[in-house]
């Protein structure tokens, strides 16, 4: 299968182009904060509950809030029906995603409480963990949870020898490597890496280039996350 034709990708994108992204904050009533996000073929909903009392009680931490993150895929989100409930992949994604948000949330402000983040993938394309983190980040801000900055996530893949931003399904499946990143962005600048995984095969130089490509993509997503929050709290007219 040819994935790059005349220097363009199968969906017509350039190597450093993102898929179309749509973000809407505050779409759920019961949750303290929420977000709907589309990133290419991904459609995800994120909800934040808390800070609230910890259940079960023994998980309480007297010095800070505990953070929980549940990544879950709807049974109808993929080609072949997925059995509902956590599988090994979801459990791992939940763990690394929680660890991507934890150092950014100011959890010391809420001892003995929990901040619960739930993300449901309604439709999955490639990069659903990055889409979910982007949505979770907006939902946390919508919930008014104090944070050191915003978390923005995007993946880079290697396809037919080229590094491409935000891979879609075929690029992920047939590509030579996949590197999901998430960054802490503070004051409009990328400050550090909060999520980093990789599988496939890359040289060290390719990895360094992948990081640069991901950073450029993340800055674009960050602006859209910001716009979604402004739209919810200040209204459309403020956004130029």
């Amino acid at each position, binding site marked *: 299968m040819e994935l790059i034709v005349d220097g363009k990708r199968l969906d017509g994108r350039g190597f450093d182009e993102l898929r179309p992204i749509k973000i809407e904050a505050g779409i759920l009533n019961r949750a303290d904060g929420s977000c709907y996000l589309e990133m290419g073929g991904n459609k995800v909903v994120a909800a934040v509950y808390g800070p609230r009392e910890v259940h079960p009680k023994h998980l309480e931490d007297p010095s800070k809030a505990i953070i929980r993150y549940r990544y879950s895929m709807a049974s109808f989100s993929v080609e072949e029906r997925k059995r509902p409930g956590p599988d*090994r992949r979801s459990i791992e994604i939940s763990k690394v995603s929680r*660890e991507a948000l934890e150092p950014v949330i100011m959890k010391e402000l809420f001892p003995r409480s929990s901040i619960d983040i739930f993300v449901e993938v309604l439709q999955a394309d490639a990069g659903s963990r990055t889409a979910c983190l982007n949505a979770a980040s907006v939902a946390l801000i919508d919930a008014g949870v104090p944070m050191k900055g915003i978390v923005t996530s995007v993946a880079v893949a290697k396809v037919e020898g080229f590094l491409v931003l935000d891979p879609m399904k075929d690029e992920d499946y047939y590509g030579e490597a996949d590197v999901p990143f998430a960054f802490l962005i503070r004051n409009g600048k990328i400050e550090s890496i909060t999520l980093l995984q990789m*599988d496939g*095969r890359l*040289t*060290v130089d390719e990895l360094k280039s992948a990081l640069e490509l991901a950073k450029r993509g993340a800055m674009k997503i960050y602006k859209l996350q910001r716009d979604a929050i402004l739209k919810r709290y200040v209204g459309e007219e403020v956004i130029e």
Partner: protein
Amino acid sequence: MNDILMEVRKDYVLSKLREGERIDGRSFDEMRSIEIKTGIIGKAEGSAYVKLGNTQVVVGVKMQIGEPFPDTPDQGIIITNAELVPLASPTFEPGPPDENAIELARVVDRGIRHSEAVDLKRLCVEEGEKVWMVFIDIWALDDDGNLMDASALAAIAALLNTTVPAERFEVGNDFPLPVRDLPIAVTSLVYGDWIMVDPCRDELSVGRNTITITTDQSDNVVSIQKSGPFLLSERAFEGVLDLSIRKAREVRGLLAEI
């Protein structure tokens, strides 16, 4: 009680760090001593025991014939599992694998899979019908930190030691498992600007903030996993890449000797 001890240990590790030292006197890029034994379980198709400092782990490989995945009808299947049994640490509990065990197994699996260490095409018995399934089971015995590298090393050592039991399944003659690469995982503890390779358990009291980089024998990176709630600077990331490649070469040398 445990919490207080952890705090004391943490203070000690940090006070040593401020003097530019590690608590066991190792340099920052020095791994603990490594011992590898293979073929220790007669009933398994392949097996290995690894002792990394005081961390001990056994990996057993069992094989059987099963159906291939529809998208890879001519390839064998690798299934990796890790059991963090309660004998190995007071913090491990009986029951199904928790997120730490799952992460451990999946990172080890990715190293083997993406380095294409096992030639899966040679594990096809009958295309679309029958292929060999390779079960890699990681059994932790003693967790003194960095079970990840010990498990990854034991896994590849066990695969090198594996004989495909074709005679027992009446599909031809036994043959050695075709292993064509040697993926090596190197885990470092990140604390601020400090990078400590192969952290022991006491060092992990400053926070279980690690990054695991697996490389193949051509120095390509085949798997990365940032694990733990911490902010990783770009500088630390680049530092850890070069360090991991250098260390992996050393460890790979040990595998050649077995």
